[in-house]
Structures are given as C-alpha cells and as structure tokens.
C-alpha cells in the first residue's frame, strides 16, 4: 500500500492509520501549533487531540491517527511554511510577550486596526485550508434501534450483547477501526470472543469508524461515518433509539510541565496503541511520568518492547521536557535524565459529554478524580469508564508557566489561564471564552480538567464549585459537507419541459420549478430580441406559455362555496357554474397573501389556482379553516396532476378552434367563462382569462397528456406563426395591463385598497378572513398607493428604485419595463396617497439620476379591456 505525503510516496502496512504509516517512515512532527507554530507530534493516537490533523485528499483537519491508510491517499501538512520540520512562523514564540491572553480584545480595539491585521492573522493562525476545488460526496441515512450503544469497548460490547440477547434491535457505534476499546492494546485478547458473538447476531448493526457527535432531543444521535463505501467521503447517520447506552469510556489527558507539548512526549495509552496495534516502538530510552500504580501498568509493555526505562518520575517532580523539536532529556527535581521518549500516565477523564447533552448533570467526584454523570434522564444510561467505573483520582500538578500548555489546540498556557483569572474572568465559562481554552478542535478533551483545576485554584474555589463547561454538540467537529448532505437540489419539471428544451428554452428557477425565461430563436439568443419577438407575437398574432407551475386545487362539496367565501375576499358561493372570478386572499390583518382564479366547474366543484410559490400554504389554510365548521368540503391538491398552458393573442381563437371540442365564440365562451371540453382529444378545463391582456384561454389538462396538447397547439398555430413565450415576455405583457404580481408589487403590509383592488373585497359578506381589519382600513386614509407611471425614454429603473420628492425618498418602483406598445418606460410604484392621481408628476431615480414620470391609474394597454373581451 502506498500513500503520498507532501508529494513523496511512502509505504503503509495493512492495518496502518495514516499517522502510524508516517511515524514508521520517520515523521515525528505532525503539525504546528495554532498560535506559536510549535512543533507537535503524536500525543493521544486515538483521535482525541489536535496534534495529528492534516489535509487528506483535499479535506482539511483530518485526524490522521484514526484514519485508516488507503492506497493512493494524498496527504499534506497544514499551517506550516515551508515545512513541518522548518516553520518560519515558529519565530512568533519570541514575540509571545506581544500576544498575552486576550490579546485580540486588548489589541484590536478599533475596526481599522482589525481590518489591517485580519488577513495576516488568518494566514498565520488557524488550521487547515479549505481548497475551493474540493469535491467530495456526502450522504445522509436514517436508522432506528431499540437500543443504541455508543462505544465499542468492553462495556459497550456487554451492553449490546445484553440488549440483543433480550431480542432488541441494537446499533453499536464505535469510532475506532475495530471494536475493543482499550482491550485492543492490552495483552489479554480474550475480548475478541464476544465481538465474534456480537457479529453473529442478526439484530445487531455495527457502525465502525463512526463518531457520535451529538445526542439531541428525542434520543436522536448524530453519527458521522467515515467512508461508508468507496463512493462517499462521509455519511451522516440520523440514529434514533428508545434507549441510549453511553459507553464512550475514558480517555487519558496530558500532565502539565514546561514543554509538555514537545514531540516525543506521549500519553501512555498512545505508546501502547502504537506498540500493540502497529508494532511501533516510539523510542529506545524512555522516561515515564505518573503515579507509581500507573507506571507499573505501562512498564510491563515497555519492557516487553525492549525499551529501557531511564527514569520513573512522579508528576509533581517534573520540571521540563528538554529539546528543540524532539525530546532529548527530562529535567526533574532529582536530576536531568537524557531520553528520547517521555511517556506520560495522565489522569483518565470519563467521556461523558453525550450523557450531559442528553440532560445528565456532571458532578465532581473527588475519589475518582472526575466529573461523573448523574441525574440521568430516562432512556439514557452510562456504562463502563464513562460512568467513572474503575477510575481513581491521580496526581495532577498545575504549575504556572508560559511554556506549560494546558490547551494544545489554541496554545493556551497555564500562565495565560492564571492571567485570565486575575483579569477577572474567574468563572470557568467566562475564562473559557476569554482564553479560548477548551474551544479548539479537541473541544476540551485534552485540557478541560487542567483548566478547571487552574481556575479553581486561582479563584480560591474547589473543583466541584468551579464546575465544568457545557458540553454541546457537535463534538467532535463535523464537516459542513456532511451536514449539508448530498449535493442535489430537487428540481420540478413541467410536463412540457423537454418540448421547451427542443424549442431552445433559456431556463429560470422558480422555487423548485424550472420555467422557460425566454426561447432562443434561429436568428438570435439575445434575451432582449427574443422577448421582443415573443411579445409582438402575443400582441399581434398568437403565443402560448406553459403555466403548469400554477398551484391547482380542486375544492368540492356542497359547502365548497362557503369555505371559499370565508378565505377569499370576493364572493364565490354566488358564482354561476361555468364562470371564473379573480380571487384575492388576505390574512386577518388585511394584508394580501395570494391571488389566483376560482372557476366553478359545476354546482359543488370549484377549480382554484394559486401562485406558484404559495400553493402549499393556501392548501393548508383551506384545510385549517374548514376544521370545526362541519361543512361538506374536500380540498385536493391537483397541481402535479394537471399540466397547464395559456394560449393568447388576437389569433388564439382561430388556432384553438382547430383543436377544441367546444364553441369558442365570444357569445358561447365569453371572457371569464370556463368549460370542460376536449383539446386535441384530451379532456381539459378551459378558462377564458387574460393575464397578458389578449383574448386567451388557460388550458388545464392531465399532466400525462399536456405535452401532446402543447405540441398540437404549436402545430395548429404554425400557419399563424404561433410563438411560445417565456416568463419574461409574460411579465412585460402583464405589466402593460397593470396586473400586479403578489409579492413583487405588493409587500407584507399591502392591503387591497392600497393596491387599487378594492373591487375584490366584499365587505357585505357575513365574515371572511381579514374582514375585521379591512372594514377599518376601508375608512382610513391609505398609507401609500400603488400607481402606474410612464417615463419617457428607454432607461428602465431597477426594481426597488426610489421615488424622490423634495430630495427625500417618497416611494419605490416595484416593476418596470420598456413598453413596446407605449414606446416608453412603464412601471408600478408605491407613492404617497397625494400623488396617486392621473397625470401627477413624480421623480424616479434611474441610473443615479432623477427622471420625471407621470402617474397613471389606468392600464397602459387596452384600458377598457376591449381586446380581452373580443
């Protein structure tokens, strides 16, 4: 197996992690520290500390000590220049007096100073770099279990076996490459039998190499599975369990002495891991630091490995580790001992963060020297060392010093913490925020206990009173890619989508929908030219547009009219079958929410259209208002079931007449009428309405036949030069008719009176949503009014441009286009009520200048609607 490290090919063995392969190939410095760029080597070897983070295949901050080596992996170091072994920025240590604790707050007191310094600091400090070209696949999955066991050590395995034996479905999550926890690197390997048994049970699922990063409400566990299959970088598993067993064990933490971060200083569990799992002996002459009982445990392993132990030192007796970029000696109270390896038997800390996230309290236990979970909520239990089982308090000296590192993630020394407390941050939570200790990638795993100890001593409290910082997910950190999941956005295509594509559609997004913005022609793909062609086709000949994205609801029942009367401002119970009416919906504040048309197809059957984006909410509202009324009414969302198109223009009738089974004459099929008839042999609902201002029909037909109808219309219209038109031409056409678009020309405060649509509200109805407020509004002076304006010339003001009066903003443009019909710029704007009169001059801001426009309360085109009714 070969991996590449900084471009150099190196060998890796089966079972190697990236870090073990690098170590075997002579790498000793694995990273450079956050602030001072101090060399850092392997410390925990279990994915708990920040020391081995590298860029792996383009993904930064990967803990290489728990990431299996794989053929062809591309590994790069981080945060060091030019190399890990020689990092020029390590000179910054000499200037540590410039960077005392809280130096951000003390130094960058003015935005100008910060803005000048920020780019340099960002470059110098920090972790890995995110490469923009990075492409990785992430996915999500959902799992359910009666019991979820987090941690695959001895107690986790036992808990899983017990639950599985009782017939429960079990999911076991373990963050290492293999189950076994600390048994894996002990001599006694009998635990493997229970793993084999567990693997044979059909009701047990195991997630290997998976971090549980959070326990959320309802026993939802966030689990990050690394490389679930070769096609995916990471998978986020949403694991829901009735019962959660936290068996996350305990991890070893560093001891404090000067230069305790020097490469070659290693936790005893890391030494064991390297030796037992990877066959690596990390030194030949070791000094062991720890309490005598702990030293005994590790000494046997060192002896077996043939390491000579040059010194056994009590934690309180260590003064410093000696060496520049690796350990050369250890200086203690009773002398200096040359060595190439310092094995630290540090205090064991129960990994009980998940239990705390689940609602448990962490209470200090003096005897076990740890914060232990208590007051566990039902459904959560803690097993093994995570509960404090088998732990005993060990010596934990807390010397003060500038090179005595408590937080190795952010280079916070014990001196810094003491200074923080003396500056007034004497509460563990404020001290944490001020110094950033416990806030790095290890999330306090390595430093929390020491930080609490120092805070307690310096503030004159005991550890129990000082307490512990809050454990919050995600911990450990999660890639944003994994949270975001697979990179596919749902797309809705109308039934005629591929026909549009053939016609050269240029797409635009409308919510999830794809709609043709305009169609390229054989002679031009310039938007302006194409839209002009489409526009003139509708005004002078015939055009057709896909309006399938409209929300479509069928409202049926004897009392359907009553419900519509209640929701919409207009009256619908008196609408004659075969007729269509414009429908406007307000909320209880009288604010316009949505509009559409309502057609009464028969006595108890209404066909309701909504705007594209509001369908879901209108549907829910109708359902909600029907509750408790006892009315006979059923609401069915038929949006996906129907395709729809609008054929419009002076020649629309003659084109459609070739296909429709009904009489389309104005006498038989007048404006605002509806019929059910066949179009091109397909049963359809035809509505004679005119959003674009010409004679036209909106045709709704079953989605599966919509493309057939669309093609038939284009074919039938060929001799009339029919033109498919897109959203842009439609917007121009409707603007000339002064038809408003809800949400574009109206906002969250607009009522129908201000929008000039008072004709839609029937205050004589017994009740409807918004009536109470609209009854007041009708007699109150309007806040502002929506008016049309005509602006000579061709410069179109941008949407939102200001209307200016006496040098002050006095309104805004909501929509504006150049009108080919008026040969001037037209638009809609909100102005003060005093300006809402025909012919009044207003000043519109266009391209930075003021232009004089004239207000109109009329449509810009076909003011009396004669063309519409033809």
């Amino acid at each position, binding site marked *: 197996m070969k991996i590449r490290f900084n471009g150099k090919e190196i060998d890796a063995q089966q079972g190697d992690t990236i870090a073990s392969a690098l170590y075997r190939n002579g790498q000793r410095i694995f990273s450079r520290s956050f602030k001072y760029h101090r060399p850092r080597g392997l410390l925990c070897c279990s994915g708990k500390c920040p020391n081995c983070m590298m860029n792996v295949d383009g993904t930064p901050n990967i803990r290489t000590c728990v990431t299996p080596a794989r053929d062809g992996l591309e590994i790069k170091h981080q945060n060091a220049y030019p190399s890990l072994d020689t990092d020029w920025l390590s000179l910054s240590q000499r200037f540590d007096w410039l960077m005392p604790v809280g130096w951000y707050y003390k130094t960058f007191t003015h935005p100008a100073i910060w803005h000048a310094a920020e780019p340099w600091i960002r470059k110098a400090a920090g972790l890995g770099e995110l490469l923009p070209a990075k492409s990785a696949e992430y996915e999500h999955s959902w799992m359910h279990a009666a019991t979820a066991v987090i941690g695959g050590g001895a107690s986790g395995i036992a808990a899983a076996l017990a639950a599985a034996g009782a017939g429960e479905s079990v999911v076991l999550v373990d963050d290492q490459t293999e189950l076994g926890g600390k048994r894996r690197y002990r001599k006694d390997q009998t635990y493997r039998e229970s793993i084999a048994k567990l693997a044979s049970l059909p009701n047990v699922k195991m997630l290997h190499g998976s971090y549980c990063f959070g326990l959320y409400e309802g026993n939802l566990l966030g689990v990050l599975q690394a490389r679930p299959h070769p096609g995916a970088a990471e998978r986020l598993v949403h694991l829901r369990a009735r019962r959660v067993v936290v068996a996350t064990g305990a991890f070893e933490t560093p001891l404090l002495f000067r230069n305790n971060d020097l490469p070659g200083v290693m936790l005893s569990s890391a030494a064991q891991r390297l030796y037992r799992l990877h066959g690596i002996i990390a030194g030949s002459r070791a000094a062991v630091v720890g309490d005598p009982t702990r030293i005994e445990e590790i000494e046997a392993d060192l002896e077996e490995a043939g390491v000579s132990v040059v010194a056994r030192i009590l934690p309180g007796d260590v003064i410093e580790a000696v060496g520049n970029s690796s350990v050369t000696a250890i200086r203690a109270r009773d002398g200096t001992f040359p060595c190439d390896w310092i094995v630290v038997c540090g205090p064991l800390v129960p990994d009980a963060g998940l239990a705390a996230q689940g609602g448990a309290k962490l209470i200090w236990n003096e005897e076990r020297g740890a914060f232990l979970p208590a007051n566990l909520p039902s459904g959560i239990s803690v097993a093994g060392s995570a509960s404090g089982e088998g732990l005993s308090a060990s010596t934990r000296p807390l010397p003060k010093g500038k090179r005595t590192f408590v937080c190795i993630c952010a280079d916070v020394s014990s001196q810094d913490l003491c200074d923080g407390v003396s500056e007034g941050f004497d509460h563990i939570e404020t001290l944490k925020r001020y110094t950033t200790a416990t806030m790095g990638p290890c999330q306090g795993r390595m430093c929390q206990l020491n930080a609490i100890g120092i805070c307690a001593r310096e503030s004159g409290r005991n550890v129990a009173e000082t307490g512990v910082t809050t454990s919050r997910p995600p911990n450990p950190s999660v890639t944003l890619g994994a949270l975001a999941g697979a990179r596919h956005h749902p797309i809705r295509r109308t039934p005629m989508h591929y026909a549009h594509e053939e016609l050269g559609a240029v797409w635009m997004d409308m919510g999830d929908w794809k709609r043709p913005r305009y169609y390229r022609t054989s002679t031009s793909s310039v938007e302006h030219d194409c839209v002009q062609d489409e526009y003139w086709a509708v005004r002078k000949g015939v055009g057709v547009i896909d309006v399938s994205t409209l929300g479509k609801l069928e409202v049926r029942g004897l009392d359907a009219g009553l419900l519509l009367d209640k929701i919409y401002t207009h009256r619908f119970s008196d609408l004659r079958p075969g007729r269509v009416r414009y429908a406007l919906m307000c909320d209880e504040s009288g604010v316009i929410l949505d509009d559409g048309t309502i057609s009464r197809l028969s006595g108890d059957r209404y066909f309701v259209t909504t705007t594209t984006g509001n369908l*879901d909410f209108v*549907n829910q509202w109708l359902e909600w208002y029907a509750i408790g009324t006892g009315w006979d009414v059923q609401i069915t969302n038929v949006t996906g079931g129907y395709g729809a198109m609008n054929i419009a223009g002076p020649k629309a009738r003659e084109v459609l007449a070739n296909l429709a089974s009904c009489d389309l004459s104005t006498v038989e099929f007048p404006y605002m009428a509806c019929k059910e008839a066949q179009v091109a042999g397909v049963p359809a609902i035809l509505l004679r309405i005119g959003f674009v201002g010409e004679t036209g029909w909106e045709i709704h037909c079953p989605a599966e036949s919509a493309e057939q109808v669309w093609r038939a219309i284009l074919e039938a219209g060929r001799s009339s030069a029919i033109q498919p038109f897109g959203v842009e031409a439609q917007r121009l056409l409707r603007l000339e008719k002064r038809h408003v678009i809800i949400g574009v020309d109206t906002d969250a405060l607009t009522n129908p009176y201000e929008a000039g649509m008072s004709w839609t509200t029937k205050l004589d109805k017994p009740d409807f949503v918004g009536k109470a407020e609209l009854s007041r509004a009708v007699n109150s002076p309007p806040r502002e009014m929506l008016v049309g304006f005509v602006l000579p010339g061709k410069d179109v003001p941008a949407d939102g441009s200001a209307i200016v009066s006496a040098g002050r903003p006095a309104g805004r443009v909501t929509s504006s286009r150049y009108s080919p019909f008026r040969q001037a710029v037209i638009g809609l704007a909100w102005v003060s009520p005093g300006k809402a009169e025909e012919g009044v001059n207003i000043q519109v801001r266009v391209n930075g200048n003021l232009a004089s426009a004239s207000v109109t309360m009329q449509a810009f085109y076909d003011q009396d609607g004669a063309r519409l009714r033809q």
Partner: protein
Amino acid sequence: MSFLLRCPNCGERSVYEFRFGGEITQRPALDAPAADWVAYRFHRVNVAGLQTEWWFHRSGCRQWLQARRNTISNEVVETYLPGGKSS
C-alpha cells in the same frame, strides 16, 4: 429541536415532518374592539410550560392536529385530531 410527535393518523414521527401552526387561539368576534384583534393577530402567550398548539403533518397525512407540549422540555404530552382527544 428533534423531538417526536405522535400523529393520530400516522404514528410517532420526527418533528421535521410537521409544520408548527402556533398556539391555539380564539378568533375574536367581528365586532370585537380593535385591541382584541390586534392581540389575536400579534400577541402570543408564549407560555413556559404546557401549551396547546397546532401542527400540520406536512410530510405525512397532511392533516392538521393538535398537541399539548411542554415548551421547556419539548415533551409532547398528547396529540389528537382537532375536536377530539386521542385517548
């Protein structure tokens, strides 16, 4: 927020399948004073404790339901279809 809600039609589901519909309130009479309408539209009790509220099962049966939920712990005490308690 990741608690479970029991839909009377579909059973226990993740809260992400639902749309929150707000506190259950009483619509004032049409001729009620304007202040009552303002309160109905904008004022919420925002109780810290048990609250009766609306939910819409958007990704399920698409029905409105009512629930009693502790707003501090997000413990859902009961859910039922409007007008009828489930139990």
